[in-house]
């Protein structure tokens, strides 16, 4: 087990290195970070050359990659070429905000999805089952940003019509409020709701399918034949085994969740890492774009690793070698 984890971990290092190299080469070739400065008549050619030299922009892209890698480790992801500010403080701040929203949404979606999945499987083809099947199909077909926009429009309308502020539709805090007060909850409620609805469909469908798989196994029939109560059979024998695939799915889903967060944060102007990325992409801030890609890549790889480990822990039949 330990050997397997170590090997997986070691394998992810070259993968990360290669993907960082490829994206760096691509982004650097395609975008000129000095385009804005060049357009500015107050910046002389001398300054441009000086800047280029200082930030190694006059060298070839692979060489620049080497300098960048050194920067990543010694100066925490380096300095933005557009604002000349260090990137790391921005990343930690925005990542913190994203984590608040994403983790909350994932927890709610998992709890709700598992509960609904169990009930749908136990009462298969009931009205309850059909209702939530339709809901999750709608969830699959709905663009995340559209759902976010609908919620935004709805609550802006409520505010304009009746002058009641139930939820805010942009930002993280109103000026003058403590960071962690009711105000913050009113701000993150809609982004969390959006991400919850999107993830919920997936989890409830998976839970339902995996429950149905287990319900039809022999040992469940044995449990029933022994005379155990239906509740006992479902909760002790079926539920615990049906949970295993959900763990994997929720961890593997993390990339999609980050994509969803990117869109949701942009709609609600929430100071998260996805919104940060979209802004930096608009400015063609090469190192900030790279920082986002690398941070999210590390998160996704870590999530996959956690999924593998949990899977082995939860299902003793799985052997790694």
């Amino acid at each position, binding site marked *: 087990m330990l050997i397997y984890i170590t090997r997986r971990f070691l394998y992810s290092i070259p993968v990360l290195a290669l993907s960082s190299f490829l994206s760096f080469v691509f982004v650097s070739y395609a975008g000129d970070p000095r385009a804005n400065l060049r357009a500015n008549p107050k910046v002389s050619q001398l300054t441009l050359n000086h800047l280029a030299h200082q930030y190694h922009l006059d060298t070839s892209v692979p060489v620049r990659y080497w300098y960048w890698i050194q920067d990543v480790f010694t100066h925490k992801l380096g300095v933005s070429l557009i604002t000349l500010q260090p990137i790391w403080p921005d990343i930690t701040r925005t990542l913190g905000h994203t984590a608040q929203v994403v983790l909350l949404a994932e927890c709610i979606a998992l709890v709700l999805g598992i509960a609904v999945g169990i009930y749908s499987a136990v009462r298969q083809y009931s009205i309850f089952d059909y209702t939530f099947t339709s809901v999750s199909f709608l969830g699959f077909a709905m663009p995340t940003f559209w759902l976010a926009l609908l919620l935004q429009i709805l609550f802006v309308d409520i505010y304009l019509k009746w002058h009641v502020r139930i939820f805010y539709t942009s930002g993280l805090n109103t000026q003058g409020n403590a960071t962690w007060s009711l105000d913050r909850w009113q701000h993150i409620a809609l982004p969390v709701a959006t991400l919850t609805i999107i993830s919920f469909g997936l989890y409830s469908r998976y839970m339902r399918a995996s429950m149905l798989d287990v319900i039809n196994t022999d040992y469940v029939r044995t449990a029933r034949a022994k005379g155990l109560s239906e509740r006992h059979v479902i909760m002790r024998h079926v539920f615990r085994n049906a949970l295993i695939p959900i763990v994997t799915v929720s961890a593997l889903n993390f990339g999609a969740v980050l994509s969803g967060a990117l869109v949701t944060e942009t709609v609600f102007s929430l100071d998260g890492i996805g919104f940060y990325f979209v802004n930096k992409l608009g400015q063609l801030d090469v190192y900030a774009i790279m920082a986002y890609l690398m941070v*999210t890549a590390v998160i996704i790889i870590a999530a996959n690793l956690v999924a593998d480990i949990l899977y082995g822990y939860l299902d003793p039949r799985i052997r790694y070698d």
Partner: protein
Amino acid sequence: MTDQTPLELEKPLVTQVSDIARPGVTTGLVDTTVEAGLELKARSQWSYARQRFLRHRLAMAGLTGLLFFFVVGIFANAIAPYPIDAIDLNHIMIAPTSSGHHWLGTDEIGRDFLSRIIFGIRTSEEVGLFVAFLGTIIGLALGAIAGYFGGLIDNLLMRLTDLVLTLPLLAVLLTVAALKGEGSQWRVSIIIALFLWTGIARIVRGIFLSLREKEYVEAARASGAGNTRIMFRHILPNTLGPVVVAGTLAVATGILIETALSFLGFGIKPPTTSLGVLIADGQNNPQKWWLTVFPGLAIVAIVLCINFIGDGLRDALDPQQRRVRA
């Protein structure tokens, strides 16, 4: 399939035996046989699949809906009540009315919104179909090569898909589209397709890996068939079911990704109109709800139809597969 000469009787016995050994290929078994008053009809795998699909109610509903949207998209010029950029200065940003001519209202410079949605549907469908087509072709080709030849190519391909899987797909697509997309519909479609083939490649590779060791492939090789013939004639048809399912669902994925890219401002850009572009434009006027609601409804309806068809196809073509959508 067999090149039968008119001189049936003169064929040597050996050919006839081999024909019998391959049921379904010879004409005798496909024909209707009348025996003791009972009519027996031999059915092929495909006719079973077709029946299963036609009986799938949701899939048929989806097919009807999608046909409707395709007719709307193809005949956009004829169906749309106004030209795409006709400006009605007397009706700027009016809400949907049944009394006037603007059934879904007008946008901020007085263009009929129903017409714009109809043209948006056309663009989004074009993107979805193109992405699915190109993605399926690339996935089929690379998956077949990797699964059949194995070794270095296989390793390379799988590492490549690993690479794509480590980054959040939307962020990568945004970056590439921002730097290379130039707001053009076809460029954006190609970019999306270039990142969407990995799923299909994995499916095809898996099937090729398991089938290349089968006895019938060995037999084909022993009778002198080359690699190309084995790949295309003997193994590829077996991948058709799963690939058709994945390809159908890829249309929906393509549309969803395109709208997300366009909405964030890095995909298709005006003057081309896609459903995502329309929603992005509508965001400037959040109180004019129809500018956001209707294009979104169109996306949901199209994607829902495609997903239903995909599920029906999966149940029909690929019965071992679970019905859960990933």
